[in-house]
């Protein structure tokens, strides 16, 4: 049987690869990504299952799934030209992706199927830092965290639990890590950006609260507090927290190895190991 050996929560800010190239390996962003990468390498994963919110680059307003799973042997990304990120060929495992979708549908989640797609910075930036050789296959699970109405936090958590069951019923022995991609409080190109910038952190108190609840693994409190109005109040990408909540559904009750807040950006870097 496949097993979940660890889980991660990371941001995907598209300008971070440029900043790290400019500011070097001792810079704050580089060090944060080194911390999660060291954990990932130690876990020796055979597969990454990544919960992700696309920024209308994989999908568009003509056809916008609430939940979707990528079922393909390879996909490319990023498709939105973040600076200093090459376009990668990313391997995937279509049979395993189809098994996740079947298991989720059996559990009552009508997850869309997507077989020919590219991904944006929200998948590619974490991989750029954490698996730059793209040696580990990735199955993306897309959650609409940007375009209201957003799915409920409880639903996303339960989707994570269904994905956990899917992984644990996969007949081959594999080491799997799950990942949630995104920020807690961030507005991008919207009315609540900071003066002079293209982004801003409208609700730093909420970002701090999320970090506190993650550190203490108070998942029911996080789910009940992560209402649509709270997440949108935290910025137009505040719903990316749903990717973290889905990830939490895959890991049980074990406390994280670490949660490293980066409050100026309204997000954190976190890692869990198998209980």
């Amino acid at each position: 049987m496949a097993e979940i050996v660890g889980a991660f929560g990371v941001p995907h800010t598209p300008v971070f690869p440029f900043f790290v190239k400019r500011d070097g390996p001792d810079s704050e962003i580089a060090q944060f990504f080194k911390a999660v990468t060291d954990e990932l390498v130690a876990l020796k994963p055979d597969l990454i299952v990544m919960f992700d919110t696309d920024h209308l680059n994989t999908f568009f307003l003509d056809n916008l799934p609430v939940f979707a799973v990528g079922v393909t042997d390879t996909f490319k990304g990023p498709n939105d030209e973040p600076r200093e990120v090459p376009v990668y060929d990313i391997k995937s495992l279509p049979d395993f992706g189809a098994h996740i979708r079947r298991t989720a549908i059996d559990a009552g989640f009508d997850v869309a199927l997507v077989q020919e797609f590219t991904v944006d910075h929200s998948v590619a930036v974490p991989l750029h830092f954490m698996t730059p050789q793209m040696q580990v296959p990735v199955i993306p699970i897309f959650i609409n965290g940007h375009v209201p109405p957003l799915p409920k936090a409880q639903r996303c958590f339960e989707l994570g639990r269904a994905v956990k069951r899917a992984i644990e019923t996969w007949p081959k022995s594999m080491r799997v890590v799950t990942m949630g991609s995104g920020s807690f409080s961030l507005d991008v190109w919207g009315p609540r950006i900071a003066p002079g910038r293209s982004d801003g952190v409208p609700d730093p108190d909420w970002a701090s609260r999320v970090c506190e609840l993650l550190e203490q693994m108070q998942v029911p409190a996080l789910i009940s507090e992560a209402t649509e109005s709270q997440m949108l109040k935290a910025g137009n990408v505040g719903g990316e927290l749903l990717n973290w909540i889905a990830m939490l559904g895959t890991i049980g009750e074990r406390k994280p190895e670490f949660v490293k807040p980066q409050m100026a950006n309204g997000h954190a870097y976190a890692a869990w190991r198998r209980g």
Partner: protein
Amino acid sequence: MSVYAVNHLCRELLRDHAFRAAMKADPAKALEGKNLTPQERDALLAGDVATLYRMGVNSFLMGYLCRFEVCGLTLPAYNERIRSAAPHGN
């Protein structure tokens, strides 16, 4: 439905490099034939992102107007205008 056309052409700025070049060279000409209301066309050509936002245009997509510096938009201009659309100040 037409706000959809604004959203769509914003994304085409990212995807379609010929359209991006046309929008940088002569936005009025590049927008000819697009399914836009007069108000949408005027707001686009004026770089009036606050009005576009109030019409319901998606913020990330509108950001491409600034990222690729079309319709007179630079980061300072975009920033000042979009922040004026904040419902509760900033």
